């Protein structure tokens, strides 16, 4: 436990002492919320009642941000250790891989909840939007997005660990493929049929479709959320497995020292 707290403390001190890192947690989220929030206000005004459904956009933007914060919280915290050439010091200490990951997950979780809390407050003050209007449904929504975001973060970490610091761009660009097929800003039915099959296997699409359904009909498909929960957990476990494989690979090939020079 003490080793996990060391990893958390290292990241906390880093953020606490760095204004631009602290700003990074809120700035883009805030900007995105403003953009989509005002667009929602505008669309509601010109569309009158016909477009009232667009208010769902604010909720999806906040939840999408939550997922991204979890992913980046894990991935960027790992990159901080790569950039500062600290990996060798960490892994030549009694720290175990699972303790390191647990520390990163803790950092990602804390950042995500703080960020989503601030966004929910801003949405309330600026757009009179209650993020908690979905009530108890928020629990499965958050659960699914947390595990999916965690999986993406672990996957990114595994890629960078396996292919070295220069693979950073590749590692970030693959998670960026997710939002167009997740129905964050538009319903999945907008996609061509074959892409709807892709969306079906993304846990995030079930959350955002669920949010829309809850707002439009007042009901949601419980089976869809159960399926998405299972998908998200399986994805996280798969990413964890991949990360462990990457770590073993790095130990076998001596690539940890590469992180000291690249």
């Amino acid at each position, binding site marked *: 436990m*003490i*080793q996990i*707290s*060391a990893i958390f*403390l*290292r990241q906390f*001190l*880093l953020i606490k*002492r*760095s204004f631009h890192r602290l700003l990074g947690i809120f700035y883009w989220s805030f900007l995105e919320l403003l953009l989509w929030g005002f667009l929602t206000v505008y669309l509601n005004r010109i569309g009158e009642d016909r477009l009232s459904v667009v208010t769902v956009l604010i909720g999806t933007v906040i939840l999408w941000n939550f997922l991204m914060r979890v992913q980046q919280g894990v991935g960027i915290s790992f990159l*901080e*250790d790569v950039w*500062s*050439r*600290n990996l*060798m*010091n*960490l*892994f*030549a*200490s*009694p*720290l*175990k891989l699972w303790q390191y990951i647990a520390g990163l997950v803790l950092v990602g979780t804390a950042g995500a909840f703080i960020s989503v809390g601030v966004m929910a407050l801003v949405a309330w003050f600026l757009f009179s939007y209650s993020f908690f209007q979905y009530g108890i449904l928020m629990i499965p929504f958050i659960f699914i997005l947390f595990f999916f975001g965690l999986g993406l973060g672990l996957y990114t970490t595994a890629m960078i660990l396996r292919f070295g610091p220069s693979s950073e761009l590749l590692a970030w660009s693959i998670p960026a493929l997710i939002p167009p097929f997740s129905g964050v800003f538009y319903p999945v039915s907008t996609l061509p049929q074959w892409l709807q099959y892709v969306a079906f296997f993304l846990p995030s699409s079930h959350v955002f479709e669920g949010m829309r359904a809850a707002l439009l009909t007042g009901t949601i498909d419980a089976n869809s959320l159960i399926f998405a929960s299972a998908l998200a957990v399986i994805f996280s476990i798969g990413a964890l497995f991949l990360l462990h494989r990457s770590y*073993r690979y790095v*130990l*076998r*090939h*001596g690539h*940890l*020292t590469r992180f*000291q*020079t690249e």
Partner: protein
Amino acid sequence: MSENILEVKNLTKTYDGLEAVRDISFSIAPGEILGLLGPNGAGKTSTISMILGILEPTSGSITVFGKPLAEKRSDILSRMNFTATYTSLPGNLTVSQNLFIFALLYNVSDRKFRIEYLLKEFDLERFRDTKTGLLSSGELSRVNLAKAFLNEPALLLLDEPTASLDPSSADEVRQKIKNYQRARANVGILWTSHNMNEIETMCDRVLFISHGKILLAGDPKTLPGEYRKKNLEELFITVAREPLSLQ
């Protein structure tokens, strides 16, 4: 006879068919400082990385404190530490923050007291609130050494510990390491350096590695004479340029 602190047996490391370390065996007894010498690319860093558990051997075994490293990695690493010129501590944290985090990682008891002691010992008190990224290479070396002594290790791996220090600071550091080792009878140290005077002063025994193999072993004071060389430096040059002449 007490058990060796470190036992390396038939250690081999191959990278894509290229043998970086070839079937080497050596040990470090309690209270011994062993010098690991060799030209660049001889296999010293690979050997140290394997002892630190961050590189998997292709074959062979490493036993530390009587326990196999492969199975008791975390237990063993909590009782050893290292410093190397190619590692650095996070530059955006202060000296005392970095030491505190590593004190947590090594589960050091009475952390604040230990950190205060090391800040004083390595003349770092005035830098306690300075970000390590702003320190000179010599100051950074002293911070790395303070980190290496945090958990009062029984096995210390020092990869060119004085490389960035001026002669006066280097001398002080050597003295501190020697004092540390004298005060604890069971401490073993593995030392690499390209400074042959330092090796002669500090080490009880040396191993010369060339092309991944142990070429020579012995007392640094008598070894040059055994090969009709004036001093350790001359012997080192021969190992680097004409290793076959010594076989």
